[in-house]
């Protein structure tokens, strides 16, 4: 990610414009933080709510970041406090799909 920005034009929160910088600009430091968050998200370590609180404006930005890193959105393992309600949900969905397929 960082390499993609090396030598490009970017600015910081004070609207100072940087050109062709070889050291990390403030935006690049933020990008490193975002990359770490995205990797943690893909690994199931942090939630979408956390990403929102940490500055991801919308889910397209999350998907875009994951795509750039060659990652996918996480699929939650069937465990935890909501396991029973999720199992019920999957069973309900299975029945509904079976009805649709047979009709």
């Amino acid at each position, binding site marked *: 990610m960082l390499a993609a920005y090396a030598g490009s034009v970017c600015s910081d929160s004070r609207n100072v414009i940087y050109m062709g910088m070889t050291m990390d600009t403030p935006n690049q430091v933020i990008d490193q933080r975002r990359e770490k968050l995205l990797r943690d998200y893909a690994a199931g370590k*942090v939630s979408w709510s956390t990403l929102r609180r940490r500055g991801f404006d919308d889910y397209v930005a999350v998907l875009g970041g994951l795509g750039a890193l060659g990652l996918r959105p996480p699929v939650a393992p069937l465990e935890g406090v909501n396991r029973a309600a999720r199992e019920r949900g999957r069973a309900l969905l299975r029945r509904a799909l079976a009805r649709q397929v047979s009709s």
Partner: protein
Amino acid sequence: MNPGFSLIVTDTSPLITLALAGSLDALLRPGLPVSIPDAVYVEETRIRAAAGAGEIVEWMNAHLDQVRIVPTEIGIDQQRRLEEGRPTRALGEQAALEVLDRFLEGDPAAEALLLFEDSDIARRQVIIDERVSLITTGDFLRELEAAGLIQSTDYILGRAAERGRNVERQRQVGADATMRLRLRRQLQEREDRK
């Protein structure tokens, strides 16, 4: 369709994922009415990603018999907040709970399936009423995959991320162009001052 059932979307992420993967129709495969709270709809369509938002609007208009936007008090609050420039985060889920309450109150035999984003479901104790079941985007896709209705869950999630990357690149190009314009102006101002 069974009127006693409803699939209630609690967050923008499942819709955006399926929209970018070109798979919104997957939501209709179970034959359940799909309810999208107004706050979720506004949140997903007001963002800059015109590609995803546009597809969602198109898709909803093509399926008005199965998909509906449900007005809520939270949605009214969201509108006020947007007008006043106040934060609107997490209002979608609150609106979904309001939709759920009304849906269950209106019909004692009604059952609802709440669609959540995967990473959020694991950490939160959501409802629980016996008439309410939960499903995540991943669970949803896995069931469709098991029923032979989609190629694979990984394929759809991968496609969404790939398309998201392209949308983000376009945003970046737009941001770069803005930045270059500012740079030109900055240099021009400096020249003018000389």
